[in-house]
């Protein structure tokens, strides 16, 4: 497993724990009221698990396991995947700032735009690795 995948997958695991922690608090709060402000963390719970965990883990595994080139560099344009990793995580926290922390609707918008940027950079990296065994 390449170093970048290790970073991406470990980050995804951290979001899994964050998402499950807030999810557990929210679910407990439904049964045994803890604090009304907890509901403000619902968007963060969703963001951490959908983007931080599922999307990020998928990217980490795809970077590792999609067909590699025979010649070095085996995973060309790795920089695009690195940029995607940074943008995705920046986007997640901008979305959380815009929803849970209510910093402003423009921050939420910026977060979503940055997430789209992450996906485009990731697609740019993997596009040429989506090939058959013959390289077609």
């Amino acid at each position, binding site marked *: *497993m390449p170093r970048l995948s290790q970073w991406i997958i*470990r980050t995804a695991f951290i979001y899994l724990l964050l998402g499950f922690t807030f999810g557990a608090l929210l*679910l407990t709060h439904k049964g045994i009221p803890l604090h009304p402000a907890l509901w403000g963390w619902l968007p963060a719970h969703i963001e951490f698990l959908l983007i931080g965990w599922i999307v990020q883990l998928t990217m980490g595994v795809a970077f590792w396991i999609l067909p590699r080139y025979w010649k070095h560099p085996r995973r060309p344009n790795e920089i695009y995947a690195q940029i995607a990793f940074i943008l995705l995580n920046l986007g997640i926290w901008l979305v959380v700032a815009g929803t849970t922390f209510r910093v402003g609707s423009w921050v939420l918008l910026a977060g979503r735009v940055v997430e789209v940027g992450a996906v485009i950079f990731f697609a740019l990296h993997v596009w040429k690795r989506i090939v058959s065994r013959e390289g077609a």
Partner: protein
Amino acid sequence: MPLLTRWYIRSALVYLTAALLLAVVLAMPINLPSFIRFMNPAYFHLFLVGWVTQMIFGVIYWMFPIITRAQPRGNERLGWFSYILLNVGLLLRVIGEPLVSTRPETGVGWLLAISALLQWLAAVLFVFLAWPRVKEKYRGE
């Protein structure tokens, strides 16, 4: 494919079926019993925890680089604990959430607290188990 992975993946398929069947029921243009109407969050969690996350756990346990030949996937017992906690926790939620919403006087809110704790522990145990396998391919050193 290890036995634990087979259980994860088969369970995931059962949850996918259950989630989509529940979605069909929730979409029925009839006056549903309130217990069913309050199962909307259960539908999302059957899908995202029961299907997506459980499928991911099963595949990670199977395919991530092994640690050593002697103990390739770490402490298997931890994996089983995680599997059981996740599933018991999720099922408690599916029953407890609409029950708490429709019959709050029954005082079963603790069901949700237990469900939350079990699922959280399942995630912690799984990450603890999988973390050392996020690494380079095992080369027998």
